[in-house]
């Protein structure tokens, strides 16, 4: 179905099942360890051998020679695949670096070989016996020194640079001005489940059991990389132990398993070892961001400029930290710029809330600083500059979508589209009351509890809502049981559950009568999981398929009884009813059952209206007056994100994202060795993410909101909103506690300790 006019009343509005805090329907499988994750798929195909991936020991240069003799002689070794015997390979559309390096090396730990052996231990042991001679080449590894060479590069269908009015003039004449530079660190996704795949060839047909967020992209890029038809590739990924963007694209585990299996002529399973992942796969690039804000004395912003620099391998895109600044606050004169410099570090790519997470980390400190300059409450300053239209909406460049490669048609362009619904100020107002914001002292360093100095901070949360085509198939069997099939993925988000809720609501069935099957390329192509587009889009696809099934059932009912009034038909308790007539769905399904398939396709509503999600973060921290250790004490996020399909799983999404925001604020940083050109702390001992002891009481409030412009579900994405701004709220709380302003993330104690107000 085409969705090109705002939704009116529909069966979802009943909210008998949708909108209820249903526990995950896949929860028991996970808590009993019976959900089959990729590396657990011992049973899907017999005779599996083990692959172990060897990463390059240099960051840039060439392999002069590889000596495999000793490794080949090692016990249990079946085959070794390198670029020399892998056959002709192309690069996937979504990959920047090649997944198999050699002889040219593009980054540290780029895969250069996979050893296949009878056991994992044999494969690992043999990999250590591969002797490689390299010629190192000089590389660029330091963003700060490469920043001036940064070039604008379009990202996510929007242009990298924009301007409205006359920023320079307005800024230079503004009464109150801020001009500061902020930095965010290289970050690693660090999801619990490592990248893992089992590959098996049956003739020229390849099946991959893997862990991937975007099934169709994985199929497409595997086909392209191997030079085979998409129809020859099947990808199966029903359970995913976290992705955060790391599993959006085909990665080396899947390709190396496929190549290894082809050479070994046996199914092969490969998991990337943890210490390989940060340099072998992808990360979020560090950013340097310059923010300039000019305002009148009354707090009205007159000029706002945001420039962001990041790094990537040649061909890779920017981490566009300035994007959200086009839409978040009012102001007549503005400019944004997102530039990317060539770095020979591993490939940078999407990590949870790409662009907004680091962008707001900087912008929302700047807003806090500006409020202080204006002697305004930081909430009032934000409310003062709230806007119901997008202040800066540049024309879209030709599409850079590698799937379609279609240039956007020359559409009429509204430079200031309205938001479909925007309740940012309301989030702040509700949050302020709930959090006790009035207890905050605007002068920093005034409150303490024992040795802890206390402070509160706020920040706006903002993230676009993306809608994208999503298909599903629904199958009603003779027992009245409905099965939903779509290649949508559940990366821990709750997709299984909200899809089941959607189908149950649409068909008038209890949840127990719904089976959801996900993550298989033999199912209709969905939106997949990423960019917080999955939940809303995929349930809308299921909605569309269910509508089609309802129509088919209604026709059957009418066939049974000609006076059955289709237009009044309702689906409830396993029946279709109209007036005094009712039929059991099970009976109408008959012995052969009924199948319906459809996709939701979105028209131009997302171009006529800006669809975004909003929130307000509130954080209280304690900072040890002696050691400057920082500990978060309380967090609250108030979110306005359309209809919340399941408050329980949505809350889990938001608190998880808030936790990730704490990580970015306080500890997460891939440290670059600028001599060798790699991330040094490439395991979970060296790359610290928050542990339970770091995370205190977290509260989430969802505004009661629907957005009929977004989709028939009237929902929006919520998976990334919670990280947006969270780091800045922590940073602002630290400032409020200590009076020490740190503009470089992560805010570790060494950046505070020299300036701590209390001397010893």
């Amino acid at each position, binding site marked *: 179905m085409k969705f090109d006019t705002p939704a009116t009343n529909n069966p979802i509005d009943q909210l008998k099942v949708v909108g209820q805090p249903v526990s995950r329907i896949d929860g028991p499988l996970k808590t009993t360890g019976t959900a089959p994750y990729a590396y657990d798929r011992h049973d899907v195909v017999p005779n599996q051998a083990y692959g172990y991936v060897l990463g390059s020991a240099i960051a840039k240069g060439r392999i002069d020679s590889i000596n495999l003799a000793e490794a080949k002689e090692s016990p249990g070794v079946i085959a070794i695949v390198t670029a020399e015997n892998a056959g002709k390979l192309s690069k996937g559309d979504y990959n920047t670096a090649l997944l198999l390096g050699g002889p040219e090396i593009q980054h540290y730990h780029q895969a250069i070989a996979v050893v296949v052996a009878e056991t994992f231990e044999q494969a690992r042991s043999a990999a250590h016996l591969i002797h490689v001679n390299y010629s190192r080449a000089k590389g660029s590894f330091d963003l700060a020194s490469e920043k001036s060479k940064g070039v604008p590069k379009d990202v996510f269908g929007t242009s990298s640079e924009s301007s409205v009015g006359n920023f320079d003039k307005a800024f230079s004449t503004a009464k109150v001005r801020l001009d500061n530079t902020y930095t965010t660190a290289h970050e690693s996704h660090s999801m619990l489940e490592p990248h893992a795949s089992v590959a098996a060839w049956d003739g020229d047909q390849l099946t991959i059991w893997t862990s991937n967020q975007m099934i169709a992209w994985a199929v497409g890029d595997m086909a392209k990389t191997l030079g085979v038809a998409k129809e020859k590739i099947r990808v199966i990924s029903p359970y995913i132990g976290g992705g955060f963007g790391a599993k959006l694209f085909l990665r080396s585990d899947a390709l190396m398993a496929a190549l290894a299996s082809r050479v070994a002529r046996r199914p092969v399973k490969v998991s990337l070892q943890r210490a390989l992942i940060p340099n072998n796969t992808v990360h979020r690039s560090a950013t340097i961001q310059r923010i300039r804000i000019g305002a009148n004395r009354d707090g009205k912003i007159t000029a706002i400029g945001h420039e962001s620099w990041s790094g990537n391998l040649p061909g890779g895109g920017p981490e566009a930290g300035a994007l959200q600044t086009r839409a978040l606050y009012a102001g007549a004169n503005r400019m944004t710029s997102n530039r990317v410099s060539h770095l020979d570090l591993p490939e940078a790519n999407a990590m949870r809330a790409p662009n907004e997470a680091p962008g707001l980390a900087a912008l929302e400190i700047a807003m806090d600083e500006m409020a202080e300059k204006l002697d305004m409450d930081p909430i009032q300053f934000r409310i003062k500059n709230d806007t119901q239209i997008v202040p800066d909406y540049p024309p879209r460049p030709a599409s850079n979508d590698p799937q379609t490669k279609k240039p956007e048609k020359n559409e009429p362009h509204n430079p200031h589209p309205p938001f479909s619904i925007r309740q940012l100020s309301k989030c702040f107002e509700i949050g302020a009351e709930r959090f006790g914001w009035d207890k905050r002292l605007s002068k920093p360093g005034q409150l303490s509890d024992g040795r802890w100095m206390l402070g509160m901070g706020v920040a706006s949360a903002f993230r676009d809502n993306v809608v994208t085509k999503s298909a599903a198939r629904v199958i009603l069997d003779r027992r009245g049981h409905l099965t939903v099939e779509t290649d949508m993925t559940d990366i821990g988000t709750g997709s299984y559950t909200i899809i089941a809720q959607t189908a149950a609501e649409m068909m008038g069935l209890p949840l127990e009568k719904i089976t959801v099957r996900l993550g298989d390329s033999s199912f209709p192509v969905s939106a997949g999981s990423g960019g917080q587009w999955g939940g809303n889009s995929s349930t809308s696809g299921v909605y569309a398929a269910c509508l089609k099934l309802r129509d088919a059932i209604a026709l059957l009912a009418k066939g049974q009884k000609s006076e059955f009034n289709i237009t009044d038909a309702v689906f409830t308790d396993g029946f279709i009813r109209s007036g005094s007539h009712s039929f059991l769905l099970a009976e109408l399904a008959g012995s052969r059952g009924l199948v319906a398939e459809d996709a939701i396709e979105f028209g131009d509503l997302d171009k006529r209206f800006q669809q975004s999600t909003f929130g307000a973060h509130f954080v209280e921290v304690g900072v040890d007056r002696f050691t400057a250790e920082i500990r978060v004490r309380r967090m609250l996020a108030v979110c306005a994100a359309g209809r919340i399909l399941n408050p329980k799983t949505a809350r889990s999404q938001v608190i998880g994202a808030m936790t990730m925001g704490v990580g970015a604020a306080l500890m997460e940083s891939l440290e670059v060795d600028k001599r060798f050109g790699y991330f040094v702390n490439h395991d979970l001992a060296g790359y610290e993410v928050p542990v339970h002891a770091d995370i205190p009481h977290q509260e989430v409030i969802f505004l009661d909101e629907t957005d009929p412009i977004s989709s028939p579900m009237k929902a929006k994405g919520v998976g990334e909103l919670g990280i947006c701004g969270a780091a800045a709220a922590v940073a602002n709380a630290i400032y409020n506690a200590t009076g020490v302003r740190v503009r470089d993330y992560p805010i570790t104690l060494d950046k505070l*300790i020299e300036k701590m107000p209390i001397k010893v």
Partner: protein
Amino acid sequence: MKAFTYDRATSAAEAASAVAKTTGSKFIAGGTNLLDLMKLQIETPSHLIDINDLGLDQIEPATNGGLRIGALVRNTDLAANEYVRRDYAVLSRALLAGASGQLRNQATTAGNLLQRTRCPYFYDTNMPCNKREPGRGCSALGGYSRMHAIVGISDACIATHPSDMAVAMRLLDATVETVRSNGLTRTIPIVELHRLPGNTPNIEHTLEPGELITAVLLPKPSGGTHIYRKVRDRASYAFALVSVAAIIQPDGSGKVALGGVAHKPWRVESAERKLQRGSKAVTKELLANARTTHDNAFKVQLVERTLASVLNDAKG
């Protein structure tokens, strides 16, 4: 991991003799560190002698009024022991500040003392490291060195000893009891067990080949207020940026040892005599001759401030 052979020892003397005789052999107890290092082929023993059956898992009062801790007592059990909690609380607190519950359940007392550094360059076999391959150079010098040592370092190595427990043991003047490959036993004061890196950072302790720690002896309890303060970037499951173990007497005198600053638990007895003069005077002497990098220079101030906090806490 290289393939290896495996045996279980039935007596400490036999184990010591076997390891001394067999080239490439090593003891294994809890395995929480050794197995990780073997998987990465940083350690490549060809033969493992499992000492878990030796029974060295008792904690008993010693005749001198102190405590005798078997080498195989698990960290969890040691931390929870009633004598330790009553008389050597600093040890219990140090243990609980380290690792995770799961690791403490498995890790042994002697293994904890002999664990190896967590320097990330030591852990990456593509990088030069004098500990792994003497003479290849130290990558941490001039590299990412925020976690690294600031005192007792050399041009060959700036790694730290990662243990919390060992810092408390050093503070308590523990001695280790060993059996050598010839079957004879001896005791080594803990101050003499760990070495500074010098030109041979690959040699980390003074045990002879095959020499096996059988127990750790603690002297008579000294009273005082026992504090272990570990400063780290996250609240749990992280190695110390710096840690301070202290026993402070009511008159303000006492003892102090540091973790996270050196290749061994760091204690300077002459500095302790200045405790009553405050943290600045003590730190100045404790960290005399400190040599820092750009990344870890903050540790000097952090030690002073952490010590100030500890002394403040000790006052109650």
